[in-house]
């Protein structure tokens, strides 16, 4: 089996997790114009919720649902308690940006208080690897990839073909114009953050399932790559972000395998710097603003 194809297969698994996280991040950004630096903590909360439920029920499905629900609730709480309040007061975006960073540390430390700082093992038997075409995957890998595709497709349907999706797009393009058109922009923003939280919480579950262990800071570490993927794909459109995530996920796997695994993060930020330099609005969209505007 060719090593490059194996690497591609492994990269697709990483990319699947990354794409869900990045899509959720871009949804949060789309309706509030705020890059939520506490996004990683939604994944972390999802992972801990999955752990708690799995320990009590032994059901991976229940754990996944709990992760999504917890993610949705924490994201909604973030929006209502912090982000929306600042937006209503007309606070500059940079201030809200910093506030979300503070929120990130608050949540991490709350998790330390509740669960401790040590690693929590989260072992779901992944089964023996099997060859699927040129790739070597386990049952869990397949579950991750299929669920990522399904969730992204569902999001596509919701955003493209529902009344809520139309409202979301309207708020994303011009919040004030949407408001004067009769759309309850605040409600749409809250609902979007809840939806993003559901996706991010589930991403936390599959990330924990893939890694097999986590700490209160594990989502924060993953957020850095999420940010890279979201910016690379282009903020504003879920599918563009997903493509960016796939490219970044696969690129990281190849870089780690063929250049040096010691500089993965540096490579990710190299991609970010390059994209910002060449196409600050992302590779695949002509979004109306970049993440740093």
């Amino acid at each position, binding site marked *: 089996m060719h090593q490059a194809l194996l690497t591609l297969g*492994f990269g697709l698994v990483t990319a699947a997790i990354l794409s869900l996280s990045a899509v959720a991040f871009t949804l949060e950004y789309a309706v509030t114009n705020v890059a939520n630096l506490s996004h990683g903590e939604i994944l972390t909360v999802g992972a801990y919720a999955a752990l708690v439920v799995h320990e009590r029920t032994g059901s991976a499905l229940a754990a996944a649902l709990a992760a999504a629900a917890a993610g949705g609730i924490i994201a909604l709480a973030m929006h209502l308690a912090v982000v929306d309040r600042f937006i209503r007061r007309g606070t500059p975006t940079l201030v809200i940006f910093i506030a979300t960073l503070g929120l990130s540390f608050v949540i991490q430390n709350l998790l330390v208080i509740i669960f401790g700082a*040590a690693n929590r093992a989260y072992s779901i038997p992944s089964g023996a690897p099997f060859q699927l075409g040129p790739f070597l995957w*386990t049952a869990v890998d397949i579950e991750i990839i299929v669920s990522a595709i399904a969730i992204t497709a569902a999001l596509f349907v919701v955003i493209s073909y529902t009344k809520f999706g139309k409202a979301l797009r309207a708020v994303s393009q011009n919040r004030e114009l949407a408001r004067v058109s009769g759309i309850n922009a605040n409600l749409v923003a809250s609902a979007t953050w809840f939806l993003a939280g559901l996706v991010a919480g589930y991403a936390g579950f599959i990330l924990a399932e*893939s890694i097999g262990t986590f700490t209160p800071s594990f989502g924060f570490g993953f957020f850095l790559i999420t940010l890279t993927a979201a910016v690379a794909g282009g903020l504003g459109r879920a599918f563009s972000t997903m493509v960016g995530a796939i490219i970044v996920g696969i690129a990281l796997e190849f870089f*780690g395998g063929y250049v040096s*695994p010691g500089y993965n993060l540096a490579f990710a930020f190299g991609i970010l710097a390059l994209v910002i330099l060449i196409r600050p609005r992302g590779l695949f969209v002509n979004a109306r603003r970049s993440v740093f505007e």
Partner: protein
Amino acid sequence: MVGTHRRLLSGSVGVALLLAACGGSTPSTGGKQPTGPVTMGVLSCFTGSLASLGNAMLQGSQMAQRAINDAGGILGKQLMLSHADTQCDEADSVPAVRKLLSDSNVVGIIGPETQEINAVAPIVSAAKIPTQFQGGSTAFDHNANPYLWRDSPSDSQLGVAMALYAYEKGYRSAGLLFYSDIAAQTFADPITATWAKLGGTIAVRITDLAPGQTSYRTQVQKVIAAKPDVIFTQTDAPTAAVLFKNFQELDNLAIPFVGTDVTGGDDYLKAITWPVAHDHLISVYGTSVSGAATDEFNRIFALLFPGPDQPQANANYAYDAVISQALAVDKANSINGPDVNAAMTAVSNPPGTACYTYKTCLDLVKAGTKINYEGASGDLNYNKYNNVFGPYAAFQETLAGQQTPVQTMTAAQLAAATP
């Protein structure tokens, strides 16, 4: 006039040196005496991925504190411990060590254990406070800083012990799998050199894994493809969890692991889970010698920490560090840093009457007997670079989360295997 002063000065120094050389073993008199409890600082990482190192260091220090205070304390005063968190980071270690040194009665620092010793060293030497660190960095194998003492063997010896254990198990082809942390980097060369001397080959070498990644499957696949008999490893706990999971997925953990002391840490073993560690991992680290010092160590542990748990890996080094430093203070009869520092080898190195507990050693010091403290972690004989040598053992995790020794390697065996 100036020349006369110089002659007087040099004459005085000469007389002082002569007196010091002929001074026998009785405790010195007239040194700086403590006005209250004597303090030792415990400097380590108590948070973060290597927090288990700090917890073990504090545990060993607390055990020594109990032994010392039960025996009447240091210079008649109770020993207090204060601790500060370096977070295993050089920048964070600076305010941490300064906090410890702000105590006027501090007589020594125990720790740190990782690369932050580089930031700590100039501060403690400027303050003239003897510091017993336990990092394995080979950069300190020829340490010239008189205030730095290392009471745990260098990683170069641990690397030799890992290679020796694996070779004696019959493995001949090895893979190296280390993350990019500086502390882990020091193992690759001694393992490789020892392995080559013993006749083994290195099939694959990955020593720059980035910690905290979500997947290492490409690297794991490379290792599996090279078909080594054994994998030498050290990573932090989160990285290990992903690595072991990836190995489980791709080859069902068919290749055994031989790890460093870090792989015997509580956090690491919990991350990969005890059953996996039991079946696939052997951790090599310095071990207690059997005898009176270890009996005392175990007795105090049972007093302080009743229950089924065993002392944490490396707690014995901290225990010996505190005991030996306390004896140096007793010998110097002073809490003045340079006085204590000068007495360090006087209580730990031969010649002298071997003693194994703080109480018996203290009684001998008070009686004016030259002592040679033999510790729970080894003989604690410092060489001219303030380094020690000691026995190593290979440990296997039980299903109940206990580390049990499966093979011991003596200092002589290690010396023979060292390239």
